């Protein structure tokens, strides 16, 4: 039973849930009015029918008794015309009287209201004993139900008076009343719909406002305030919503602050990293490079002064090793922080980098730089350089690409960079799972400068990276 109930409730809930609040309220009001109206109509109709039927029955008895009393002398003195008049007048004065007739003690009809003939079968239908007060039965006639009452006249010595009261009038009254009640129900329903419309507006306006506010908050607008229209549950909901919005706004503010701090920190880290790289690069170039260069010069001088061919050969080997180390140090310095980036700018640095890159990796790179005649802010130059560097490194390491292109365009105060390759591409989700942070790094750099970075890649279709940074 409980399970059935819960299933029933679940079904009911699903059914009710399919309608809007407006429809629900309308439905409740209409259903209530209609149920009440129809219920009361049916009940009143049945009670009224019962009461009127009882009254009709009593009326048939009283009319029959009255006719019997007044007919007594008329029958005894054989005044049949007056007897007929009595019946006609009785029918005239009681619209419900369908027929009236009087029989003598032998059952012969003395007077009746049927006019030209008489329905003979009516005679035997209802009989009454001389000692009875009356005898009433309900007849199902071709003209509807008829209450037939027989009353003995002068204890049956003068005959029997019979009166038939038709239910037609009563039925008409009941029908009229039923119609009026149903009409009232319809009218009340109309008023109910109007009231429900108003009620719906009153009830749903705060809900709709709440919904709109919730959508706005969902889109990040924490300035939404919903006016609590009433002190009811919806009003409480509005207040709870406002409190929640305020909490969210506070949380958002804190988050923004933290984000700001993080950005600052990141910026500092990056700056520090760049400074450190620059310092190490300079150190490598200036100190280590100079030392190695002078070492080579000395080795050259020693070689020239050495008479032994064996030693000379070994010295040459050493000198070659030192030259290789010098190259390595030089490359390392450039890799860390190309001085050309600081000295000649982004375009020159990228040209140099691409040149070196093509020497080191089997990838053909097409670099196009447009509208970059002037120097850019140092942070932007560094960020774009590092993004291109990281991207090309990724291509060399993972893309198995034949060619790559780098397009740099400075226009309308924005610098746009597009790096494309014809490699194997990658699945972004898989890359995220593998925890490859390189892509995050370039995104962080772009975002630190309020830039936007978009990566488009599908396996087998190559990769495109778009970066746009404001100046």
């Amino acid at each position, binding site marked *: 039973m409980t399970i059935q109930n819960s299933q029933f409730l679940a079904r009911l809930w699903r059914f009710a849930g399919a309608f809007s609040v407006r429809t629900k309220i309308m439905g409740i009001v209409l259903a209530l009015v209609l149920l009440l109206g129809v219920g009361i109509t*049916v*009940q009143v*109709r*049945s009670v009224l*029918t*019962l009461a009127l*039927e009882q009254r009709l029955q009593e009326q048939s008895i009283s009319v029959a008794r009255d006719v019997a009393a007044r007919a*007594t*002398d008329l029958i*005894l*003195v*054989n*005044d049949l015309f007056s007897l007929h008049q009595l019946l006609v007048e009785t029918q005239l004065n009681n619209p419900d009287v*369908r*027929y009236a007739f009087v029989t003598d003690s032998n059952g*012969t*009809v003395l007077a009746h209201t*049927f*006019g*030209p*003939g*008489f*329905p*003979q*079968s*009516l005679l035997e*239908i209802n009989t009454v004993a001389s000692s009875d007060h009356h005898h009433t*039965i*309900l*007849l*199902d*006639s*071709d*003209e509807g*139900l*008829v209450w037939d009452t027989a009353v003995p006249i*002068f204890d049956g*010595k*003068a005959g029997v008076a019979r009166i*038939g009261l038709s239910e037609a009038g009563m039925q008409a009254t009941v029908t009229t009343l039923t119609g009026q009640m149903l009409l009232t129900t319809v009218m009340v329903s109309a008023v109910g719909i109007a009231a429900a419309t108003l009620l719906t507006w009153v009830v749903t306006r705060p809900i709709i406002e709440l919904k709109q506010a919730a959508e706005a908050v969902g889109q990040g607008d924490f300035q939404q305030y919903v006016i609590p229209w009433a002190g009811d549950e919806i009003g409480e909901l509005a207040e709870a919503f406002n409190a929640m919005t305020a909490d969210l706004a506070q949380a958002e503010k804190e988050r923004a602050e933290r984000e700001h701090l993080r950005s600052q920190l990141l910026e500092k880290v990056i700056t520090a990293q760049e400074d450190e790289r620059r310092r190490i690069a300079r150190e490598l170039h200036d100190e280590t490079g100079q030392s190695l260069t002078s070492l080579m010069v000395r080795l050259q001088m020693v070689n020239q002064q050495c008479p032994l061919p064996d030693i000379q050969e070994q010295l040459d080997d050493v000198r070659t090793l030192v030259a290789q180390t010098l190259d390595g140090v030089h490359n390392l310095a450039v890799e860390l922080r190309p001085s050309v980036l600081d000295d000649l700018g982004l375009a020159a640095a990228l040209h140099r980098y691409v040149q070196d890159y093509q020497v080191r990796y089997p990838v053909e790179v097409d670099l196009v730089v447009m509208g970059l005649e002037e120097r850019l802010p140092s942070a932007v130059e560094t960020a774009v350089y590092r993004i291109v560097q990281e991207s090309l490194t990724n291509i060399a390491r993972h893309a198995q690409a034949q060619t790559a292109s780098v397009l740099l365009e400075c226009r309308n105060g924005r610098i746009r960079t597009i790096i494309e390759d014809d490699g194997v591409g990658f699945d972004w989700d898989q890359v995220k799972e593998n925890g490859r942070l390189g892509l995050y790094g370039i995104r962080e750099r772009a975002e630190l400068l309020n830039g936007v970075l978009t990566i488009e890649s599908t396996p087998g279709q190559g990769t495109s990276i778009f970066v746009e940074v404001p100046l």
Partner: protein
Amino acid sequence: MRYFLLLIAFFLLVGCATPPAAASINLSDLQPLPGVSATAVKPLRVAVAAIISPKGTVDSYGPLLDYLAEELDRPVELVQRRTYGEVNDLVQSGEVDVAFVCTSAYIVGQRDFGMQLLAAPQVMGDTVYHSLLIVPADSPAQSMADLRGSVFAFTDPISTSGRNYPVWLVQQMGETAESFFSRTFYTYSHDDAIRAVANHVADGAAVDSLVYAFALEREPELAQKTRVIHQSPAFGIPPVVVSPQARPQLVADLQAALLQMNETAAGQAALQAAGMDGFVLIEDALYQSVRELETAVNREP
């Protein structure tokens, strides 16, 4: 489940509204009524003039008619009419065989078509009665003179005690009924005249002393509500009459049955119900005073 039961109860209640009909009938199926079939034995038709009301007549004369039916060995049918005149017409046309009429009705019938006396009832050992002038018990009237300008109830246009005598009394004062009373009406029976006075429908009435005594016996409260202020001289008692064309054998049989009535227990019981001692033969001469009164009252002015 509970709601389902409630629903069923609701519709049962609605269903209870109309009880089942006991029988069905077609009210528009009208047929001509059969004529009254002639009975094999012709009943003895007895008319009783409306000295007392039709219902009172049935109660009083019923046993007497049953007795006659028994004695004559044929059914007896009671015939009543509203006025004395109608009964006289029935006697004259022979539609009734025998009639109990009022004295003045006899006078008129005897004069007009030779109505024959058959017998007369004896009440309190005598064959006379009086006209009593009655008023409501709380009325200050002491004589007919005090009833000037009042409402007066007559019993029948040709009644001796109920109309002719009070009109004669008024005429003795040099007035007519129309000028003396403010209004008059006919009750067409003596007991209804008594009831009219008792219930203040009329301020006064003149009634048959025999009917008055009989009515007081049956309805004692009438004695408290009415008072007799005048009694007329004795008149001949209302007789039993037959038509002049009545067959002598029937006249003889009827006379025998009536005269021997108090000799059997059934006859005595019937006489008691009618308030009579028995029946005696009677002479037309006994009605002379009534005849004179009738002539005096209805004389052309």
